[in-house]
């Protein structure tokens, strides 16, 4: 297993001003993950490998990764260091007829060929949060096992959510919104957990997530409900992983990542879909597989890649093809955080390496 850590020096400097704390943290990170033979490279500066620098454009950066592999062989894990302003998300044509003009995606970075719906590399991104402390914190995180999970679902999707949550928690313990609202949300629900699962509504315009019962959409939670939280977050909400021009004050995903003990966030960059009832499909199915792989001891990045492969296989077996919303699901889900972290030990008993 080999890892490429990729960033843009100029863009990173523009975003967080002083990059020295990051470089120090990266140096320690690389030292502690020798088993992955990590290589750090900036796509916009010359390097000793003879790969020519490129501009801050998604296609060019993808080509840069490809050129790196031509020189040094394949990388299994790709860590994108920085948000959209440092390493742009791909803006892919939206296969669905909905309000999203494009689908923001990291899938092409995870794929070696033009068929980027199906990823080969295990890919994760550490957003910059416009703050070097935020980035350093992501590189220094470690999993604290608690053996407990928390799940929150819109009331109308309770049955569907129980099916997703089952690999990591007791379905009957899922909280529903309503009756839960932001005002009576208990901070302790998010503390000392291994997994935090959410199947609620989200909006690009709001820092809140929402429940549903019929035509009633209460505010289920907001950034201020997140205090001393822990675990891996898996969220199905629309725009759950949308970070463009967002901060930890107005994006739940960034607020979670700013927490010391939240080790990763898996979510959708755009409008996501799922069923109201089992069987699981779309976002439900993908997140269910993600949780299953984590529980089996795979890393964050492997779990999302493997979940996507299983999701595609299942969809093909069910219908014979990936339809528009299957394809969008494959493209829109990303994972933020250290790609090498595991919630459960690997088969070799390892947590990080």
């Amino acid at each position, binding site marked *: 297993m080999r890892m490429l850590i990729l960033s843009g020096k100029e863009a990173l400097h523009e975003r967080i001003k002083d990059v020295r704390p990051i470089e120090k943290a990266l140096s320690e990170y690389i030292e502690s993950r020798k088993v992955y033979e990590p290589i750090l490279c900036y796509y916009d500066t010359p390097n000793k490998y003879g790969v020519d620098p490129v501009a801050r454009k998604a296609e060019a950066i993808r080509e840069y990764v490809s050129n790196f592999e031509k020189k040094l062989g394949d990388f299994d894990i790709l860590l994108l260091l920085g948000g959209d302003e440092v390493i742009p998300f791909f803006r892919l044509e939206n296969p669905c007829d909905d309000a999203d003009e494009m689908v923001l995606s990291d899938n092409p970075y995870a794929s070696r060929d033009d*068929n980027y719906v199906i990823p080969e590399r295990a890919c994760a991104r550490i957003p910059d949060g416009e703050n070097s402390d935020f980035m350093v914190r992501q590189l220094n995180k470690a999993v604290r096992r608690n053996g407990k999970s928390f799940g929150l679902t819109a009331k109308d999707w309770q049955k569907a959510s129980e099916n997703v949550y089952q690999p990591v928690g007791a379905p009957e313990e899922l909280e529903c919104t309503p009756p839960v609202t932001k005002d009576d949300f208990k901070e302790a629900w998010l503390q000392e957990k291994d997994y935090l699962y959410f199947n609620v509504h989200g909006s690009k315009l709001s820092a809140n997530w929402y429940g549903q019962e019929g035509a009633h959409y*209460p505010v289920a939670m907001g950034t201020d409900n997140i205090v001393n939280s822990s675990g891996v977050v898996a969220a199905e909400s629309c725009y759950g992983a949308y970070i463009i021009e967002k901060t930890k004050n107005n994006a739940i995903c960034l607020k979670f990542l700013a927490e010391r003990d939240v080790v990763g966030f898996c979510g959708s960059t755009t*409008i996501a879909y799922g069923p109201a009832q089992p069987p699981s499909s779309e976002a439900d199915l993908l997140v269910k597989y993600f949780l299953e792989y984590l529980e089996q001891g795979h890393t964050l990045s492997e779990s999302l890649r493997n979940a996507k492969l299983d999701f595609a296989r299942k969809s093909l077996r069910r219908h*014979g093809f990936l*339809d528009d919303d299957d394809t969008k699901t494959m493209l829109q889900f990303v994972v933020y955080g250290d790609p090498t972290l595991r919630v459960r030990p690997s088969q070799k008993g390892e947590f990080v390496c």
Partner: protein
Amino acid sequence: MLINPKRIEKIKEEIFAKYPEFRGVEPKISEKTVKPQDAIYAKLDMGVPKQLKSIYRLKFERTVRAADETPIDRILLVTLDENFEIVKIVESR
């Protein structure tokens, strides 16, 4: 092939009963021919791809207001097979 209007009305009745928040919304109906996805099958090391298929899609869409007045686009997608049977219903999260 056009969907029989009676079949559409039947599906609408079913949707409005199960998802009353979409009651009164007129669906946008589309037909799509799905070509064999050979490259995807090959990349997943799966067998022979299925043949060309036609699917039909009924899209119900409306904007609602959450309790804090944030607008939320609600989309419900109903997928029908070549026999106009429902194969999948999903909604926006």
